[in-house]
């Protein structure tokens, strides 16, 4: 009698988990943490290397001074490349981000399962797989040969690279907005377009911004399409539409392969500057999206 009474509770004290399962659990946990460490090592090493080598050459005048005409010279700065990277990337972003977001709105909110939407989606996928140098070659053949080298030609190539990233990431974010919110807006007598502007986009804003920033960061680091679209200059050129320009990524490529210590230092400084710019842009985007994104408290 007492035995049977005690049994239901006592069962809890003896585990029925088999030893094999415990072992697999430990193994999986160790593997997971190990993989995390392995992934962190190269990231940490790159940042350590860049900061330790780059910080030595990095200062305010490095950001503003012209690039020395001869790679043999030491000192000088990366002013033209900083300006070039900023204005070329900005121009590309201005072209690609609004177009991409509008394209994604069409794909998800209007086109849905239509033929045009399917074709557009497919083309965006194909475009995101096109190597950047091919995009550069395309702009070289269609634009540079006609209008000459300019920052804008580089921006066109970068915009073409950014566009599919923006379209697909934005579409994913729009998909995450619950349909109930759209219905609630319609039920209040809101039109479709205003529902998108006042309800859907704000709800998806954080994700859309992240996707757009990812595209910007990718574009800022691109080298190949800039090499033959933008040209090279050692003087600051604020005019994105005419004259040869240069960019940090192109300067890293050019300077790092010279045998001269001064140029190599500048390459490291440029690499550090580029990473810092991308980092700042990411922080800025996080800040902006947190201000406009979903309020949960």
């Amino acid at each position, binding site marked *: 009698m007492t035995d049977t009474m005690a049994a239901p509770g006592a069962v809890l004290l003896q585990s029925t988990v088999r030893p094999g399962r415990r072992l697999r659990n430990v193994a999986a946990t160790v593997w997971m943490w190990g993989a995390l460490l392995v992934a962190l090592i190269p990231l940490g090493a790159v940042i350590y290397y860049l900061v330790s080598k780059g910080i030595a050459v990095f200062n305010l005048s490095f950001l503003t001074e012209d690039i020395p005409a001869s790679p043999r010279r030491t000192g000088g700065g990366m002013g033209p490349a900083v300006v070039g990277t900023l204005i070329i990337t900005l121009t590309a972003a201005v072209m690609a981000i609004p177009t991409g977001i509008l394209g994604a709105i069409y794909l998800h909110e209007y086109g*849905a*399962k239509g033929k045009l939407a399917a074709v557009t989606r497919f083309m965006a996928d194909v475009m995101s797989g096109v190597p950047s140098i091919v995009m550069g070659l395309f702009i070289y053949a269609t634009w540079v040969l006609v209008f000459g080298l300019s920052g804008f030609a580089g921006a066109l190539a970068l915009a073409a690279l950014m566009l599919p990233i923006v379209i697909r990431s934005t579409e994913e974010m729009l998909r995450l907005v*619950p349909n*109930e*919110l*759209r*219905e*609630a*807006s*319609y*039920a*209040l*007598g*809101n*039109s479709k377009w*205003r529902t998108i502007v*006042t*309800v859907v986009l*704000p*709800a998806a804003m954080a994700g859309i911004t992240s996707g757009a920033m990812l595209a910007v960061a990718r574009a800022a680091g691109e080298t190949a399409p800039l090499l033959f679209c933008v040209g090279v200059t050692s003087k600051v050129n604020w005019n994105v539409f005419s004259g040869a320009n240069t960019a940090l990524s192109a300067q890293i490529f050019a300077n790092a392969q010279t045998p001269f210590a001064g140029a190599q230092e500048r390459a490291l400084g440029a690499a550090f500057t580029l990473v810092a710019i991308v980092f700042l842009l990411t922080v800025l985007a996080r800040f902006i999206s947190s201000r406009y994104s*979903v*309020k*949960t*408290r």
Partner: protein
Amino acid sequence: MSDLDLRSHADVTESQTAADPEAAPGRPTADPSSVEPSAVAPSEPEAAAGPGDEGPLDPSQAVFELADLAVHYGEFCAVRGVDMTIRKNEITAFIGPSGCGKTTVLRCLNRMNDLVVGARVTGQVLYHGVDLYDDRVDPVEVRKRIGMVFQKPNPFPKSIYDNVAFGPKVAGIRKKADLDEIVEEALTKAALWDEVKDRLGKSGIGLSGGQQQRLCIARTIATRPEVVLMDEPCSALDPIATARIEDLMAELKHEYTIVIVTHNMQQAARVSDRTAFFTAEVNDIDDTRTGLLVEFDATERIFSTPTDQRTENYVTGRFG
């Protein structure tokens, strides 16, 4: 501004003064012929509200007139054979088993089915004599007058204030003072004001389920619709929150016409003046279900002396 033209201002002010439910039936009406039905219609829910024998219906009391309504999704017929008249300042409940088309019919009343790809509505839905599915009717205008509260509370991920002010802003009201007033009025009517007045800037998502649903009701009535459609508004709520929303409905019906879909028969019996019982027929060929309206009558009669055997089986619990 045109969206306000259809609703009679006289009615709103009258019923606002008649906050006491007892006072409502005695409310003066312009048209003498309407005295007979309206004297009985807006009575207390507990009195089971029988508008009684279908006397001559004053046309001005009919908000919706449905005739031979059917809805298809592609080839599939979701519901058919719906004939009913929904009257002003009454609560009309739709009850019936799952898949019988209650929600589908409800969503016909403010053209929400337009949003479903492949949905097709046949038959007639008259709103104050105007066919809602006439080509000239703009669904956006329809939804400004016929609001909807959904099954799952769906506040926008915005502040409480912005949730309620959303509809009025859509209607073009921009002045802060006007919006403040509307927000307070709507939240007060939805019995939520005291709970949220100190945190209007906080997100609507942070409220409890019952509060969120009352926020959604406030958001709907802030646009001052004539009709409020409710699609199982209490199915996600606990009994206390449900009771609050039912009390709220009893209050609101003096100003609004309410149509509610519910799975809860007690709820229909408690709050509604008229009840429509739907059921689902299984089609032998492809095993799909088509809903149809079985019986539509005063709530009291549906629950005490239904004329159809199927209604009786359902309300007595012999068939679910």
